[in-house]
């Protein structure tokens, strides 16, 4: 990948994540048992970024997405929740991805991201509410996060195996030829 290709690729991923995130906001979530839960489809992009870009560039994708989504339809408080969720889930996904492709697939990576996103948001919520009992809500959210994380992992896996360019970028990343 040349430098320009990489820049365009980062920009494309970030913009796709923003659009997916905004569209997802329009879908009413059918699970009445877990208010506040959402599908987390934008996680597909983060998984793709982690598998095809260097850690620094994947971080850039997440950061751009975070700022743009908040600017396009959020308030200061929603920025804080999504920021803590995004940072925590990115660190977790990066760590799980480090286990290596022979041990974990994209499903493990995306489920980690989904669960840790909830953890990050609930931590901020409990910090603001000054009561850690908010965290008691975690098991329900985690259960749903596992389901949506598996779906997102399968989707990302299909994209990375069937879209030629993505497949090639992943090959570049894993063979270590990508300039950092």
């Amino acid at each position, binding site marked *: 990948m040349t430098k320009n290709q990489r820049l365009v690729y980062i920009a494309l991923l970030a913009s796709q994540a923003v659009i997916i995130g905004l569209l997802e906001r329009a879908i009413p979530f059918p699970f009445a048992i877990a208010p506040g839960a959402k599908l987390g489809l934008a996680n597909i992009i983060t998984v793709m970024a982690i598998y095809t870009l260097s850690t620094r560039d994947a971080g850039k994708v997440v950061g751009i997405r975070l700022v743009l989504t908040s600017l396009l339809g959020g308030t200061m408080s929603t920025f804080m929740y999504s920021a803590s969720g995004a940072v925590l889930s990115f660190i977790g996904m990066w760590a799980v991805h480090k286990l290596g492709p022979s041990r974990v697939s994209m499903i493990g990576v995306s489920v980690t991201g989904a*669960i840790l996103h909830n953890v990050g948001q609930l931590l901020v919520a409990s910090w603001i509410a000054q009561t850690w009992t908010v965290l*008691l809500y975690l098991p329900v959210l985690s259960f749903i996060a596992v389901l949506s994380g598996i779906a997102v992992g399968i989707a990302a896996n299909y994209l990375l195996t069937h879209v030629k360019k993505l497949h090639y970028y992943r090959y570049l990343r894993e063979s270590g030829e990508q300039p950092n």
Partner: protein
Amino acid sequence: MSFFQIVKRWDWVVIITLLLLSFLPSAVFSYQQAGISEDNSEFIAVISVDNKVIKEVTLTGNIGHEILDLDDIPCHDSHQIEILDNQIRMKVSDCPDQVCVLTNYISRPGQTIICLHHRVFIEIKAVQGNSETEDIIISY
């Protein structure tokens, strides 16, 4: 490619570890609550806005239907909080995500209703109630 061809062994390790860890707060909480005996404990709902307690309602033994009209709660003009017997819920709110309304009735200690948008929190706590007789004995 099917699901079982994609998934690898460590995926399950990671998923199950995280699921178990998510039960950790509940475990700590129930350990903490074990000190309060069931018989003479009372459940109260603490309603707070911006971390300032607005009102405390005793839920144990409460019978009937009541709608609280609290001016300090910014979620809606009026009639925001509904109490039915020993349960409490957020009835209406004008916040965008409606998480507080969807949470519906809560009645067990540790349960919370959270409105992040307006920073309104309703939390159910278990307190030791009717301990006057014990106090007298201790004071001797």
